[in-house]
């Protein structure tokens, strides 16, 4: 699957678009990290990509086909979404939450069948939380809940996974687990588009990066090219240093840190 966004403008009024000239291209198994300051329009971009908001200009295409006229069900066969924070409503079991990913693919009054059960169990296994399948969803940890949301999205058998700040509010260990999961998904051929406030995560995943700046044109390309000290300062309005570390026997890894004034 080839996911292409070309010269996209999105927002709520044509006279004042929130984002302009957004371009990105994802091939199967590629990861793209969307970075930018608060309020720059990341959620607006996702709403547009998921057809909840009409685009003001430009195209969103999957394998060359414009998705703007696609019905929700048609889109859900290709694209799945993981929200930033899922608010638990009722004490569902873990496997019941994962099964919700299949419901949109069934007809309105249909009950999930054997195939749905198999896909859900496999999705739970893939993200490593199948042992929690009978636990109450409100009683598992934040990291496990995030992995469950990914499993729910995987149950849709998507080719593209869109994730809104998947590591927000997670501790370091859970953040690492979610990052590892994203890398594994990409390795299995699923494209992943995720937002983050941590530029390091683009480097962890060796991802393509879409850097959104307030007032400026978005930059898109490999993280090593897009995330320079200058571009990060422009985007976040603060001095940020980019440096390279080399672990024993490992490839060099770039990291970022704020540059504090003495």
């Amino acid at each position: 699957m080839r996911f292409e966004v070309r010269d996209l403008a999105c927002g709520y009024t044509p006279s004042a678009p929130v984002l302009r000239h957004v371009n990105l291209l994802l091939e199967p198994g590629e990861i793209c990290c969307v970075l930018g300051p608060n309020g720059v329009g990341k959620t607006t971009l996702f709403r547009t990509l998921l057809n909840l908001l009409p685009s003001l200009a430009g195209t969103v295409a999957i394998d060359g086909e414009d998705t703007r006229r696609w019905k929700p069900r048609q889109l859900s066969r290709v694209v799945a979404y993981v929200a930033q924070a899922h608010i638990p409503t009722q004490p569902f079991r873990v496997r019941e939450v994962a099964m919700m990913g299949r419901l949109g693919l069934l007809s309105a009054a249909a009950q999930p069948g054997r195939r749905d059960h198999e896909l859900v169990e496999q999705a739970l296994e893939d993200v490593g939380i199948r042992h929690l399948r009978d636990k109450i969803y409100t009683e598992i940890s934040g990291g496990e809940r995030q992995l469950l949301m990914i499993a729910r999205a995987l149950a849709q058998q998507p080719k593209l996974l869109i994730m809104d700040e998947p590591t927000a509010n997670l501790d370091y260990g859970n953040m690492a687990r979610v990052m590892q999961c994203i890398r594994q998904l990409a390795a299995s051929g699923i494209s992943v588009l995720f937002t983050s406030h941590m530029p390091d995560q683009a480097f962890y995943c060796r991802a393509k990066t879409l850097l959104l700046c307030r007032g400026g044109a978005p930059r898109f390309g490999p993280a090593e090219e897009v995330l320079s000290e200058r571009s990060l300062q422009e985007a976040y309005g603060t001095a940020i240093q980019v440096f390279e570390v080399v672990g024993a026997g490992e490839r060099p890894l770039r990291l970022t840190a704020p540059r504090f004034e003495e």
Partner: protein
Amino acid sequence: MKLSSERLRSEWLRERRRERSRFLAAGLLTGLVFLLCCCFRANAWAYGEKFIPLVYLKNLGLALRVLLGRALPPVSGEARVLYLGALSRLRSTAMALLSGAGLSLAGAVFQNAWRNPMASPGMLGATAGVRLGNVLLITLFSAAAIEHVFLRYAFCYGFSALCVGFVMLLGSLAGGRRREISVLEMVMAGSVLSSGLNVATMYLMYRLEDDALLLFEELSFGMLEQTDAVSNAVFFIVMLGSMLPLLLLRTRLNLLGADRLESAAMGVSIRPLRLLAQFCGVVIAVCAMVHCGELGMLALVIPHAVRRFAGAEMRRVCVFASAAGGCVMMLARLLCSFFHILSEPVPAAFFVNLILTPLFIVILARGRGELK
């Protein structure tokens, strides 16, 4: 790691068997309570509403044969009496079953859709509309109001529809530019509107004569069972017509709590589903109140009680809540037949609350903050 297909298949079959047996047990239990209530109430009709359970139990076989049509045409004097009683009590018990089942189902749907454990269909002002419809009709026609069946339904359903429409409009306006109906504003609008209508209802109540006031109370609390053919037809059509979509869509109702972005990405347009669920829930609540009076805490407590033992999955909650609500309501109606306070009949809501209040206290005490 790829899971074994055989193992998953056997797991699925086991779970499906377990679920089917639970559904079957719920259906059988509800059917049993229905038959028992019909038998007892038919016997009570024949024995002047006396509480003599041993006699009724002895007559159980005969009453069952009558109910199942095995004793038709009536062969003995006792069977004939039971047959006449059974016919009227059968309809009344079926109304109790459906109103209890419908209200519990509507409560479960509203609690999920509004992400609020206290939500109930009455919060949109519909029940205040029914009360106002009743009191206006009685103000216009006094004690003869009961004969104006169609007009009564037009008043009650009409005022409820107006109230709910007004509250939804306010919620929609409060939702701002995106027209996403805001639950909080809708609840506030519902409360304010209900309070305003209740003031009007109370004003009209104080102006009623004694016999008209008594009629209003009997209608409001469901002590005056209207089991004529027209009332029955309206009740069964409206109630079944509103329950059926919810029962058919019960698996999809799991998504009611999801936000718009999530549900769209899962391939479901959540707004029409949420509107349909709320519409059906409100119609059920209005129908139950118009035909059976106020029924107490069914919509609030039964869904919580069901979730305690069956989990939150709506496919199960809808079925079990309907069964449990129906059973509680039938038992409450049965108790109404036998027990009076100071020789005065007691509304079914009294027994419903008598059964459910201790249950709700236990749920709250053992909930460990689950209802937050």
